[in-house]
């Protein structure tokens, strides 16, 4: 399913003007708070009526202000997961999960309760009441409740923002499984780049009510022009890698397009394919293969693009096969090494610089 969105809405001192397309998979709306992300998914869910706009899901028109079409929220079938779970306090977890089932169109291919309960790991909670759940548990139940209402699209508004780091780490794998196991398009609002890197198939960058960049995640994150828009310190490309072996000394051996890759123990079976986010500032460049160096990973790549920054820094885009990497170095180093497009170069990466949260399942 493809979602087409075009909106114009005027707030006091703020104009939202966006148009983009969300193809199948996870589309992450990324931007600072106040950039208009939540307004966009509220308009998609029908909780806000924009001044002008047209929103379609394949050939279903959800909103068309010109034609005077505006489906009410309950007829849009957008499964909305709010930042603050919003579970019904008077119902048990099971009743909460089944709430949308009453209203779902009869005969539609329904997702089984048991499958979602397993997928989200909430089997032990079914007979409890929402008041007795932790924040992470509540959010998992809210996600299950939205999926079980048999929506055409799942809309998540910063579902992890209200949770601490441990709870976030608890929920992210469940979201990855949803993405990979259910064929449900997901619109996901976030201001955390780690969520973009782990979940997104498509990224839509928003700033001050406008879309500044949009496209496939790997391309956006490894593009020296768009990557800084997500925050220079956070800039980093995604590398696809496959687990080859679990070594005895606590390292995991993977292989990617640029060669072997060692990372601190990754809890994944041999053969699993992973998305590894490598921060641009953790990548060092060398024109000859360095020897006598503690860094374990030396990847052979080719320079694809060099983009000088306004300050002392520069972003270098590297390619290895179909994969892209991004390195953040100084302009002085670019000059000293004479880096230019087409030049072979070695990318050096310390194994320990890749944090656990930057490794996720592929999808």
């Amino acid at each position: 399913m493809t979602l087409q969105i075009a909106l114009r809405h005027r707030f006091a001192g703020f104009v939202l003007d966006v148009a983009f397309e969300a193809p199948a998979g996870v589309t992450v709306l990324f931007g600072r708070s106040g950039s208009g992300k939540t307004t966009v998914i509220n308009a998609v869910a029908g909780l806000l009526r924009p001044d002008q706009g047209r929103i379609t899901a394949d050939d279903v028109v959800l909103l068309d202000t010109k034609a005077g079409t505006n489906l009410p929220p309950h007829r849009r079938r957008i499964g909305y997961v709010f930042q603050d779970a919003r579970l019904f306090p008077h119902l048990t977890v099971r009743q909460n999960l089944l709430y949308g089932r009453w209203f779902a169109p009869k005969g539609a291919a329904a997702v089984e309760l048991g499958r979602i309960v397993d997928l989200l790991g909430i089997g032990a909670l079914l007979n409890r009441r929402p008041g007795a759940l932790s924040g992470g548990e509540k959010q998992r139940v809210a996600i299950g409740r939205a999926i079980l209402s048999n929506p055409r699209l799942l809309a998540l508004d910063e579902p992890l923002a209200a949770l601490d780091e441990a709870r976030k780490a608890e929920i992210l794998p469940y979201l990855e499984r949803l993405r990979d196991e259910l064929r449900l398009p997901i619109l996901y609002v976030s201001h955390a780049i780690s969520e973009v890197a782990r979940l997104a198939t498509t990224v839509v960058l928003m700033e001050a009510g406008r879309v500044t960049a949009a496209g496939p995640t790997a391309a956006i994150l490894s593009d020296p022009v768009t990557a800084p828009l997500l925050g220079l310190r956070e800039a980093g490309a995604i590398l696809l890698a496959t687990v080859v072996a679990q070594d005895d000394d606590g390292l995991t051996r993977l292989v990617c397009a640029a060669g072997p890759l060692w990372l601190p123990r990754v809890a994944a079976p041999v053969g699993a394919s992973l998305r590894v986010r490598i921060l641009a500032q953790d990548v060092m460049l060398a024109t000859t293969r360095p020897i006598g160096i503690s860094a374990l990973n030396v990847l052979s790549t080719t320079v694809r693009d060099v983009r000088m920054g306004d300050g002392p820094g520069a972003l270098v885009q590297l390619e290895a096969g179909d994969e892209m990497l991004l390195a953040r170095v100084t302009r002085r180093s670019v000059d000293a090494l004479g880096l230019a497009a087409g030049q072979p170069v070695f990318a050096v990466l310390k194994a320990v610089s890749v944090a656990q949260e930057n490794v996720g399942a592929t999808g």
Partner: protein
Amino acid sequence: MADWLTPDEWRAVALSLRVSFWATLVSLPLGVMVAYALARWDFWGKQVLNGIVHLPLILPPVVTGYLLLVTFGRKGTVGLYLDQWFGIVFAFRWTGAALAAGIMAFPLMVRAIRLAIEAVDPRLEQAAGTLGASRPWVFATVTLPLILPGIIAGAILAFAKAMGEFGATITFVSNIPGQTQTMPSAIYALLQVPGGDAQAARLVWIAIAIAMSALLLSEWVARAVARRISGT
């Protein structure tokens, strides 16, 4: 049953219970609707509606009774047509006592229910909408269960108020034993005749007992419901 009450006194107690029961039951749906409108909607004339609902609380009861008489009396502006078209008569009937009691108790009922509705998080109702529930379904499956303690409290408060209503009732439907003589009217009538004090005292104790039980019952039910819906 007990012969410590005369048949007339029994009739007064039974009539009061019947009047209060029907006054509460009939006004309850209307009370929920008005409370919902006042709590959730912005509309032209909202303050006027709010004022009219609360008027019986601040007007002298005798004035309310008089207004009922000129409106719903046999020759009243509304009563005339109710009688002609539907054969419904309020004046000097127990139904009139129920109408008077219901109107006098209405502000208390609406206040209790309105507070309960204002305490319901509208974001829960919004969430129910995104799950496919239309407005009436949202009300039936989310709002109503969450305001149930408030509705029970409002109903019992209204019932207790109806049991004690005197001024508007006696003005509107008079004080006819067996017809419109409710417990407060009976107590008043007994106090007017020499030697009626002892009889009046018995009715007074019954009034106190009924009021106390209603209060305790409402507390108990509301707490049980609140526990059920608090989500723990």
